[in-house]
């Protein structure tokens, strides 16, 4: 297919590029300026000074503890998802049990349940279970709300395994357990990395469950830290921007080194 350059589309794409990049530029340049320096120059100007005080202030304000909490939540959510979803997806794709299609439909329905809609019962459930203001209280519902999309993604990728391979395993007398570990898991590596990235993103960026299910500083995650920071020091823009940058840094690193899995994980957000 020969394509001649499309100048109108090219111009439009550059305008959108600017809309995307200007806030990022302001964020990056603000983080290396002092509050006074930033206020004097204005957001779009080139930085006139250089300082790391915004980051050192963040560290001394205990922001790193929030990062640690978020990391614990993220690793646990990924752990739950990786343990629960592959057997489920395997059953969805291969089982002939009567209940399976009902289960799959329930998970599809789950795609349409917005977390916002069920925060009151979840708050009740977590409070009654005595998990209010604990990291486990955040981890459990966050993981549960990752399950529908992850199941959809992984069962999609397990469907690509040809039936002949399953039949060959069965002919050799392989139990479902053996087929699962010897055939299904090795051939679903791509799908599994996608659901890992997706659930990690959800957990890392999650805001609603931490907001309603925790209150003390010891259980604070990054997103809540940002919110608090903004309510308390709203005009310390370089400090705020440094916090925003720190909160997205791990995701940015994943993006640089594992773009493919990340993009597919993000597409998972779109339920694709």
């Amino acid at each position, binding site marked *: 297919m020969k394509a001649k350059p499309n100048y109108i589309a090219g111009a439009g794409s550059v305008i959108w590029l600017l809309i995307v990049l200007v806030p990022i530029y302001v964020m990056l340049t603000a983080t290396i300026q002092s509050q006074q320096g930033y*206020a004097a120059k204005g957001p779009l100007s080139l930085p006139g000074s250089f300082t790391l005080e915004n980051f050192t202030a963040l560290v001394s304000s205990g922001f790193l503890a929030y990062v640690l909490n978020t990391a614990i939540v993220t690793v646990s959510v990924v752990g739950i998802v990786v343990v629960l979803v592959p057997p489920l997806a395997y059953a969805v794709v291969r089982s002939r049990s009567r209940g399976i299609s009902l*289960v799959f439909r329930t998970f599809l329905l789950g795609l349409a349940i*917005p977390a916002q809609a069920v925060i009151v019962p979840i708050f009740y459930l977590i409070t009654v279970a005595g998990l209010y203001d604990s990291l486990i209280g955040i981890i459990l519902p966050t993981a549960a709300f990752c399950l529908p999309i992850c199941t959809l993604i992984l069962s999609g990728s397990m469907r690509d395994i040809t039936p002949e391979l399953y039949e060959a395993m069965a002919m050799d007398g392989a139990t479902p357990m053996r087929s699962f570990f010897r055939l299904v898991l090795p051939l679903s590596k791509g799908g599994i990395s996608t659901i890992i990235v997706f659930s990690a993103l959800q957990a890392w960026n*999650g805001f*609603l469950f931490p907001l309603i299910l925790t209150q003390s500083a010891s259980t604070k995650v990054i997103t809540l830290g940002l919110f608090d920071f903004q309510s308390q020091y709203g005009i310390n823009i370089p400090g705020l921007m440094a916090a*925003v940058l720190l909160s997205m840094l791990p995701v940015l690193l994943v993006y640089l080194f594992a773009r493919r899995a990340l993009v597919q994980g993000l597409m998972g957000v779109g339920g694709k």
Partner: protein
Amino acid sequence: MTRSDTGRPRHPGGPNAGRPGFAWALPATLFFALFAILPLIGVAVMSFTSWSGLGNPAFNGLDNWVKLAGDKVMMQSLWLSALLTLLGVAIQTPLSILLGTWAAGHQKNRAILSAIYFVPLLLSSAAVSVLWRALLDPNFGLPGQFSSFFGGDGNVLGTQAGAIAVLTFVGAWQFTPLHTLLYQGAARSVPPVLYQAADIDGAGTVRKFFSITLPQLRNTIVTSVILMVVGGLTTFDTVLILTKGGPGTDTTITAFYMYRKAFQSFDFGVASAIALVLVIIATTISLVLVRVTGYDKMHSVQEGI
């Protein structure tokens, strides 16, 4: 597991040989039922109770619903939710279709630009909102530096129109990349033979876009619009951080009103009723969209279930 004496399945190679049983699905299903299905039922039940967060919920019949029906802020919030959702769909859909089909080209510059377009998606809603709130700060943000452009005191969040414009813009900034990604993937899977045929017929870029690309993107448009509608109706983090529902209650959309009722007024019964209204509206719109467009049939064929 039924096994014969040799330790092999009784029907080697038979239809159910080596197939996993229901037990494989059980752990995930129970977990999901506990934290998603049960709460969904819970929200319906709790909408007929009163609970302040202490003790146990007590049934109070239709009280919450009667209160809600006469609640002016609730009615206003429904209009605001509809308005913000419509604005989001109207702006993001054309934008992301154009960007997505453009980014679907395999040219080097397009690949680099679309890699940068993704960046807003890496940020949490909280980070996006904090970032834009700082950028729009009347004194230290863009309005301070370009006061002639923003006019007045530069407090763009101080009026209803301004606040709605900001929420719409920030929503588009945050979510257009996601929809662009969906359209990019879909546009790439359009069979090239269609474009080759159009080239032979002498069709131009515009004609090809409207006669081939757009019809081929039909399914994706439905998916993307459903996501925008559900996402728009449940927008919460951005409203909380950017406008706090204000000025006054001027941007208190339904999802935010529910949060206020629950976690600021501790009126969990009314909040549950609002949540149920949201679920019903979002599900109805999704089902109608799916039916009207015939998406369900195509989808089930693709899924092979």
